[in-house]
């Protein structure tokens, strides 16, 4: 009984290897396959190796893919746990900051009503008020990062073109002296609608544009391009600004992370984290490419709804 079990355990991968090798030789599977970061010319390899050799190669590939999958699972589990810890931390922080902020706001309102207040004191109060507002925005964003879950998002057909026009209009209002190019697919047909949360997606592109404008100067170019390929809509937000150092790029989507070359520019480090989270909840992807001193492009991809007919 045990022998049969061991035998079948050994036979299954072997048979699978032969089957894969056979399919590769027939050209029924892709010509190239990925193994980790290596691309393998499967068609060439299998045609030269013969069936037994091919089976051996297929077996090695199978083992490799299995191990890769295991590593990916562990990585995902770790990542989820980290995310949960971070969320708890933000919830707590949000909570602890609310009372102090309320008291500061009340205190400012009271001081504005003291009878002899000099213009200098008035200016101080204005500044304190503005900074309290900044803190409140930070607290709000942190709460959103910790609370933003799929059920809170709307799922409705929305026009991506309109969302982008809105985000660009808001960015233009905030940076009136800057030019932003907006190019949305018009031909042969207009950009497809997507399914999602209109208001949250405006936040995403607004944040991306904010970054593009903040980390570039008036002479630089900022461009938004959008097109779809029938399955995905892709939006690029590109700038010719200061760029992100290579070492910082893997971390830019983390909460509160800020690049090593932007310390002189005010920012919360939450804009990209929020964008990432909202896009993730839309089951889309967000990627960033950057060269320091040349600029940055962020690409957001959103799945188009399946055609109804």
């Amino acid at each position, binding site marked *: 009984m045990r022998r049969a079990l061991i035998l079948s355990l050994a036979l299954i991968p072997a048979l699978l290897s032969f089957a894969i090798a056979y399919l590769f030789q027939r050209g029924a599977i892709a010509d190239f396959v990925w193994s980790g970061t290596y691309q393998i010319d499967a068609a060439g390899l299998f045609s030269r190796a013969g069936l037994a050799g091919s089976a051996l190669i297929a077996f090695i590939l199978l083992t490799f893919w299995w191990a890769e999958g295991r590593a990916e699972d562990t990585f995902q589990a770790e990542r989820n746990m980290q995310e949960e810890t971070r969320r708890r931390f933000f919830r707590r922080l949000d909570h602890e900051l609310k009372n102090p902020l309320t*008291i500061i706001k009340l205190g400012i309102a009271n001081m504005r009503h003291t009878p002899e207040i000099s213009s200098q004191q008035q200016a101080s109060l204005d500044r304190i008020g503005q900074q309290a507002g900044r803190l409140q925005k930070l607290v709000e964003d942190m709460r959103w990062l910790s609370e933003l879950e799929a059920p809170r998002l709307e799922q409705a057909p929305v026009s991506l073109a309109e969302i982008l026009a809105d985000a660009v209009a808001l960015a233009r209002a905030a940076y009136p002296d800057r030019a932003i190019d907006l190019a949305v697919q018009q031909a042969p047909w207009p950009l497809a609608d997507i399914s999602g949360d209109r208001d949250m997606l405006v936040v995403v592109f607004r944040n991306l544009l904010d970054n593009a404008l903040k980390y570039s100067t008036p002479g630089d170019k900022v461009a938004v391009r959008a097109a779809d390929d029938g399955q995905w809509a892709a939006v690029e937000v590109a700038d010719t600004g200061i760029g992100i150092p290579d070492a910082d790029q893997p971390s830019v989507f983390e909460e509160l992370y800020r690049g090593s070359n932007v310390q002189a520019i005010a920012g919360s480090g939450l804009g990209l984290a929020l964008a990432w989270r909202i896009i993730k909840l839309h089951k889309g992807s967000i990627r960033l490419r950057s060269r320091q001193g040349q600029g940055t492009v962020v690409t957001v991809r959103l799945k188009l709804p399946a055609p109804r007919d």
Partner: protein
Amino acid sequence: MSKPTLLVVDDEADLLAELKPLLERSGFAVATAPDGRRALDSLQHLTPDLIILDVLMPHMDGRELLRRLRKAGNWTPVILLTQVGTPAERAMSLQEGADDYLNKPFDPIELIARIEAVLRRTRRGDAPLSSFRRLRSGQLSIDRQTRQAKLDDDAFSLTARAFAVLEHLMLNPGEIVTRQRLLDEVWGWEHAVETRAVDIRISEIRKALSAYQPGCIETIVGTGYRFIHEVVGHA
């Protein structure tokens, strides 16, 4: 008319120290208590017109105090100061018998506006609309539980946020509801989401009501919106 009396209950002494003069300046007489238990004690000899109640407090928290008051048949209007702004928590505040709630950190002007609105409502002797499941205004009715809106007997569809905007306007008939407040109540994200998001939902509601009375929601330029017709509540 004598000054309305408020009882403010919060465990944060600094908050009471700042809130008391602010409310007094706005024309209220103010008593304070540092927690739910002490608030119950002062209610033995004090009959406030309204209680402002923090949710999170040691000894007896705001919700517990509210439950005890309502159980004992005390219907003094209560505004809850909440900490977490999730829609579930908000709904819970109203179910437990609060007349209104406000998220910390709140805008002082907003707090005063809410106090006055609640006092106006209770002076008329009305039960708070928030205690009803169904709201009706002429042919328009909404079911707050099933989240369905109807004109006469015909259901019409609204996006979830448009429904919530309509609900908030109908809960506060005749009151100006600012865009910021709607953003805070419906989106829970006052700063990041732009006020245009509110305008888009308003035009969605008006379009849905076009056959009936798109004008029942009045635009207050630069401020917000107001539901101008009378609203009655049903169980």
